[in-house]
């Protein structure tokens, strides 16, 4: 544990000089983007960012904005977890709030733009909309259904999506369960072995991006043993899929003979995974312990915090993030606006924890992992902070904003969305 927490401390300390010279004064400089004409009172408070970066709020109170996508003309598409006036997708024309159009009568999380189509997901299906030559949705009321009938039992039901460059779309199907017990999350309930959920959830499925009405049996079971993923992205620099796994909960509540309150708050890492076709990451049988730097046998399956058992051969994460922080978006940065260090690196939006209690809750920030050749190339660091609204709110887990989506604009700006109130921030860099 010492090493892990000291790494975290080091990272935090190392980034503190940047964090203190924050957006406050920089935000007042003119920003070289004429599409932004909304000036919010939030500008002066801003987010805490590394030096040279500044943020503006491009939209406020849109609703529960999950993932976002920005088109080449600057239009922002926001996917809502709850319908607003009957709409589950908002289009902010020109990237601002002066002209907002709503469509898509289903709530959900996933949204993406690729090769002249807008893709969006409900909690059980994936749709697409053709865009015209002016990048406008041609038929907002009649999307093509690409994939349907996916599992939705509320828990872990986000169907996050990403597309590769070969005509495929990847869909996360989260397990509606913590650890595949007979009775989910019940003290004393056995882990099912084999876990029947793995047949239809707890993994990533690959579908054709242009074929209507696919069901799970038409898809390729691309990777399994992944409890839940909300953030995933295709890394075009190396042509591979990367996902953020939400690690398991409640080691202490269900197994206090093996795990302390602190163990529960700190051990079961959130995992940054490189996913190759056919990979199995071990859920529900295994979790990753960053202190031991090992995949460990879950206590529902005979583990006691020390036994590795069948988990010894399971692929480790590229980066193990602190437990329970809920990584809800992943984005590989391909723009030219930010300094060289950010090129092809990974931004990760952490929605924030609940299962750390009674330890203070944590997360509510956007992190950055420098990458080279598809591998981490240095320690991760906090990139954007200040969403929670103060330390007390952060510790309680009842915060102002929760980072949930990330998108890159055509000029290389980074957009961050919040599903608490529905803010969208635009982050820019100026030397």
């Amino acid at each position, binding site marked *: 544990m010492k090493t892990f927490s000291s790494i975290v401390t080091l990272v935090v300390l190392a980034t503190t000089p940047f964090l203190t010279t924050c957006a406050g004064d920089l935000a007042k400089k003119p920003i070289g983007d004429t599409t932004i004409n909304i000036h919010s009172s939030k500008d002066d408070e801003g987010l805490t960012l590394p030096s040279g970066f500044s943020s503006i709020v491009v939209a406020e109170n849109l609703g529960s904005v999950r993932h976002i996508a920005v088109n080449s003309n600057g239009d922002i598409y926001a996917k809502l977890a709850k319908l607003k006036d009957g709409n589950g997708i908002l289009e902010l024309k020109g990237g601002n709030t002066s002209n907002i159009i709503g469509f898509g009568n289903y709530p959900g999380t996933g949204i993406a733009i690729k090769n002249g189509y807008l893709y969006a997901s409900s909690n059980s299906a994936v749709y697409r909309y053709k865009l015209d030559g002016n990048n406008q949705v041609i038929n907002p009321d009649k999307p093509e259904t690409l994939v349907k009938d996916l599992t939705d039992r*509320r*828990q*872990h*039901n986000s169907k996050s999506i990403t597309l590769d460059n070969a005509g495929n779309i990847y869909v996360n199907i989260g397990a509606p369960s913590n650890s595949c017990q007979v*009775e*989910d*999350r*019940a*003290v*004393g309930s056995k882990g099912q072995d084999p876990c029947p959920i793995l047949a239809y959830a707890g993994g990533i499925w690959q579908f054709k991006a242009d074929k209507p009405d696919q069901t799970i049996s038409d898809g390729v079971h691309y990777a399994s043993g992944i409890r839940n993923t909300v953030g995933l992205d295709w890394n075009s620099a190396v042509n591979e899929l990367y996902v953020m796994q939400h690690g398991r*909960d*409640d080691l*202490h*509540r269900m197994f*206090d003979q093996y795990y302390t309150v602190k163990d*529960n708050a700190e051990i079961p890492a959130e995992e940054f995974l490189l996913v190759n076709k056919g990979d199995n990451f071990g859920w529900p049988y295994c979790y990753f312990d960053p202190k031991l730097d090992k995949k460990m046998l879950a206590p529902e399956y005979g583990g006691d915090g020390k036994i590795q058992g069948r988990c010894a051969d399971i692929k480790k994460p590229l980066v193990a993030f602190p437990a329970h922080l809920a990584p809800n978006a992943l984005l590989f940065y391909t723009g030219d606006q930010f300094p060289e260090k950010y090129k092809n690196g990974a931004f990760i939006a952490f929605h924030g924890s*609940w*299962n750390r*209690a*009674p330890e203070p*809750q944590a997360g509510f920030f956007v992190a950055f992992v420098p990458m080279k050749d598809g591998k981490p190339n240095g320690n991760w660091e906090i990139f954007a902070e200040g969403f929670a609204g103060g330390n007390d709110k952060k510790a*309680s*887990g*009842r*915060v102002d904003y*929760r980072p949930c989506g990330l998108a890159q604009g055509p000029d290389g700006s980074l957009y961050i969305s919040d599903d*608490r109130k529905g803010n969208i921030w635009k982050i820019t860099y100026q030397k």
Partner: protein
Amino acid sequence: MRRRLIPVNVVIAALLFILLSLDPDQTKPPKAVMDRGKVIYDKECLSCHQADGLGVQGMNPPLAKTKWVLGPKKQMIHIVLKGFSDPIEINGESFENPMPPHHHLNDQEISDVLTYVRNSFGNNAKPITPAEVKKVRAAIAKGK
């Protein structure tokens, strides 16, 4: 002889008032029950409903003055014994997590923790007895 300045009845009323205000909440359950209830709450419920009973946005509901906590005892016992995943809304918010069953706790433990919840976090409701828990447990066993 000097006349009394304050009438006796006023003195008695004042004394009574002081006495009552020393223990303003006459319905509060015995300390032993509350203490036992808190130990169980901290172990079994806190990780979801949080130390202050106010829950977590979008994940786990608050236990402060909700209609389930202050409502019919049977219903509350049922939720905790059998678990609960019907979609509910509190102040416009719904919750992604399921509430797991707690049949591993005995009747005394369930009654202690529910009595504790009904008298913490700003709640003030009648205690729940082990006999009441036993009845609901039997009904659940019969498939109700």
